[in-house]
């Protein structure tokens, strides 16, 4: 795709595992992200789902250069972020921001909301003091908070309000890409929808590209344009949200989809359940071949030998399974 806004090319992030106190021995690697290629359009919302520990957060943090990729390119608007260093990297950070999982930990408890937002606004631009108050109140209104609360501290807000503040802080630098790492998993269910809708609405209004990370397929299903399913450091299925949800291709996705409860009790009773047995493998030594084969109901001998690539299933959908055509 030539009009890709964000492009990942074979991105790998491996963490070295070392033993020893002063003289460290390298004893292996955690392949948290292991060869991810992906491209997103401007304003697109991608839902990134997968079990705990599959490398979603690491992928998000790698895209934002909070951890350097071991290999591969992260190209945002034509610029390879993985090659930026020091000052150049710091300055380009205005283009991409992160929203964290825990709104209790992601705001400095010693700073007022005003100070937090002003710091973010001034991180990349010189704004005259006379204009600051205006800018800050605008941000507050954008995320649905009253500017009256500006002089309050994070602990005086509820979890949902804090997440709104964190969103406002991310918006303060006027980014083009936002990665939201499980932004609602720490919140009450009643508040989750509000925050999800706020993010979707902001993305649409501001043409923001949004990567929404979640371990729960049902959370991302409504707002995502496309969904990427991750398993042990690799993307195993990628496609339009409704397609992935209605007719999953990869056996792992099928299991994830079948775990989402259906609100209609009649259909809930009749539907087919695919139960996932066992734990996900350790990313330090994943099984050979397809990493999913030990837990897969459709696995054949070949699956333990060949590493499946993420291949086109049709024009819009991709899946990493050598038996994709047979089983679907």
């Amino acid at each position, binding site marked *: 795709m030539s009009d890709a806004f964000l492009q990942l090319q074979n991105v790998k992030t491996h963490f070295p595992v070392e033993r020893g*106190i*002063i003289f*460290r021995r390298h004893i292996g690697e955690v392949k948290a992200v292991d060869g991810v290629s992906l491209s997103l359009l401007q304003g697109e919302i991608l839902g990134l789902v997968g079990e705990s520990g599959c490398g979603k957060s690491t992928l998000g943090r790698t895209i*934002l250069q*909070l951890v350097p990729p071991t290999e591969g390119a992260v190209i945002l608007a034509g610029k390879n972020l993985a090659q930026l260093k020091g000052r150049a*990297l*710091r*300055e*380009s*950070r*205005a283009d991409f*921001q*992160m929203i*964290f*999982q*825990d709104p*209790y*930990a*992601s*705001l*400095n*408890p*010693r*700073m*007022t*909301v005003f100070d937090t937002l002003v*710091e*973010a606004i001034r*991180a*990349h631009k010189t704004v005259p003091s006379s204009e600051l*108050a*205006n800018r800050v*109140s605008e941000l507050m209104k954008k995320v649905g908070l009253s*500017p*009256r*609360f*500006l*002089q*309050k*501290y994070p*602990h*005086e807000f509820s979890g949902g309000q804090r997440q709104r503040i*964190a969103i406002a*802080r991310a918006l303060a*630098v006027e980014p083009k890409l936002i990665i939201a790492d499980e932004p609602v998993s720490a919140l009450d269910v009643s508040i989750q929808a509000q925050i999800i809708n706020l993010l979707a609405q902001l993305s649409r209004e501001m043409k923001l590209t949004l990567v929404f990370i979640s371990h729960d397929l049902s959370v991302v299903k409504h707002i995502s344009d496309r969904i990427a399913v991750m398993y042990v450091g690799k993307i195993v299925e990628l496609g339009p949200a409704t397609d992935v949800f209605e007719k999953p291709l990869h056996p792992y996705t099928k299991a994830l989809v079948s775990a989402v409860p259906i609100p209609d009790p009649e259909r809930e009773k009749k539907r087919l359940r695919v139960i996932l047995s066992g734990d996900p493998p350790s990313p330090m030594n994943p099984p050979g071949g397809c990493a999913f084969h030990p837990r897969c109901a459709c696995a054949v001998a070949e699956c333990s030998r060949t590493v499946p690539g993420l291949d086109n299933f049709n024009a819009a959908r991709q899946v990493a399974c050598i038996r994709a055509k047979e089983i679907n």
Partner: protein
Amino acid sequence: MTAAPQPATLRPTDEIEAGHSLWQDAWHRLRKNKMAVLGGIFIILLTIASFVTPLVASDYYKHQNLDLGATPPSHAHWFGTDQLGRDLLARVLYGGCISLSVGIAATVVSVVIGVLYGTISGYIGGRLDVIMMRAVDILYSLPFVMFVILLMVIFGRNIILLFMAIGAVEWLDMARIVRGQVQSLKKQEFIEAALALGLRKRRIILRHMIPNVLGIVIIYSTLIVPSVMLLESFLSFLGFGVQPPMSSWGTLINEGAKSMEECPWLLIFPGLFFSASLFSLNFLGDGLRDALDVRASKD
């Protein structure tokens, strides 16, 4: 509709709700803790009295009256006098000045060393951290009283050296505590958010790290002061501390203990003041810990 047009800008005074910083909350909680408040008041009064006395009556503590000798408390000498006829109240207050100065000075030394050392070790991490913390472990295992006594023997009985030596002993705890705090802060998402914003390292340390370790530094400082005072009095008791005619609580207690039978007031008053200030500082420290510990009391 005739509603007045909403002003786009925010008027700072009439609309914004005031917030309460964690410092303010801690202050409210501290004020509710009676023992901590009493301890604090006692320490403040004692500090004022101890530091003002030597100023207004600079020589009175060593003014001898051999004809008078040791007398029990009276109208003229509220705490009595010692064998040389010196006024005990003046000597106790003067001793407080020395003991508190040693306590505070050594604490400042240990806080400065400990905070710098701990921050560097925790922030940089990796191999440097391992080496720095092993060094602390080794220093920890040395018999420090012996070390201080050795210093006193080699360099003479110098009060400056005394608190340098004590400060050098006490920074170890501070370094460990600060390092632990910095390490856990470094993993906090608001630090990562600050990095993601592209803020400079200096700003991250000044605005995000330091204000968040300050609380614990304050708590442990108030607890280091009494332990230093105890160490100083112990050394003075052994005869390695401050020398006559200067007096610290340690030397006064030492002298008092020698004539405990005939003149008990010589032991009672310095002992009372000494214990009361140790208690007060500990109550204050505990109160501060309860008040400042955000995690234990909030959420």
